[in-house]
């Protein structure tokens, strides 16, 4: 659906119109933030900050792209700033994993499996965070969020060709960082399938 009428109403000071835009995009923006920070509270705060920022800079939106693309671009830049502020190489230890998620009523094996999942997720997230920002961004947008090449190109303001080459380098770098863990996991999967 075209957002132009709602954006124009919001520009005239109609708060309900802006609220409708927030409702439409809140999940997408939250998911984007969560993909980068992997923490519900921080993702919620970031998503709120992004919408407040969007409201403040709505007059800068020139309608030369879709509102959703512009919103994503602002969101990506805001998240980038946030990551820079907190320091990209923050360690994610297993102590950061919320133990309360593992209910004592669950069977032990299920708990262990869930814990293992969480451990793997934390490891991938940590490896992603340790990449240079441009690789972290592009991998998150494409491989985590599943955006198309064209969408990624529009959001990052680069050509689809650059998206392709940058993605290749980013995946290669991430694989190198995670190689030992990935190989053992791959073998385990192959072994399980046989």
């Amino acid at each position: 659906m075209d957002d132009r009428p709602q954006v124009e109403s919001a520009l005239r000071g109609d708060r309900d119109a802006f609220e409708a835009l927030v409702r439409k995009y809140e999940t997408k923006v939250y998911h984007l933030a969560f993909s980068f920070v992997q923490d519900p509270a921080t993702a919620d705060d970031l998503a709120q900050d992004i919408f407040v920022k969007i409201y403040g800079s709505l007059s800068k939106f020139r309608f030369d792209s879709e509102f959703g693309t512009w919103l994503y671009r602002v969101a990506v830049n805001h998240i980038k700033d946030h990551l820079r502020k907190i320091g990209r190489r923050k360690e994610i230890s297993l102590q950061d994993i919320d133990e309360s998620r593992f209910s004592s009523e669950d069977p032990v094996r299920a708990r262990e499996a869930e814990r293992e999942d969480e451990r793997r997720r934390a490891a991938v997230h940590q490896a992603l965070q340790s990449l240079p920002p441009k690789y972290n961004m592009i991998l998150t947008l494409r491989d985590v969020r599943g955006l198309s090449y064209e969408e990624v190109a529009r959001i990052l303001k680069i050509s689809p060709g650059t998206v392709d080459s940058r993605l290749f380098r980013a995946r290669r770098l991430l694989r190198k960082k995670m190689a030992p863990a990935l190989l053992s996991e791959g073998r385990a999967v192959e072994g399980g399938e046989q």
Partner: protein
Amino acid sequence: MNCRQTERWILKSLESEIDSSRRRDGDEHLAACPACRSLRTEYEALRGRLKAFPEGEPGPFFARRVMARIEVLERPASADAPAWQKWCLRAIPISLFLIGLFIGGLVFLPSADDGWSRSEALLLDGSNPLAETTPYFDETKIDDKNVMIIFAADERMANRRPRP
């Protein structure tokens, strides 16, 4: 197809359909190259992990919370101030006006005491203003001299000034 080309081929094949001739080339290389086979295993596992990132949902009343923040930001700062602060804010321009009026009065209104000082009057008369003080310094008794200087210091106390 060499190993580097195969790496690109693996990544492409994980994302989209590859035409049959290219697929055959890649498959042939993989069959002969254990390093590239393990590379594919790693990329598959990596892709699986990235895709499995949890998403979650924004907290309850997300939109309402955003709008409440916007409302607070847009509200003028004085709206939150207590009544006494509002009165203080209103009193500032009035106080500034009154202070300006007072200073203007001091500067522009003619002074009530616009007469000449004693020294100026003596100079205008062509007299030596120092002639009056000479006897004080000529006094030989030190106590008398000090008392005379103290009294002479205040011209407004001229009537109480002792005559030499």
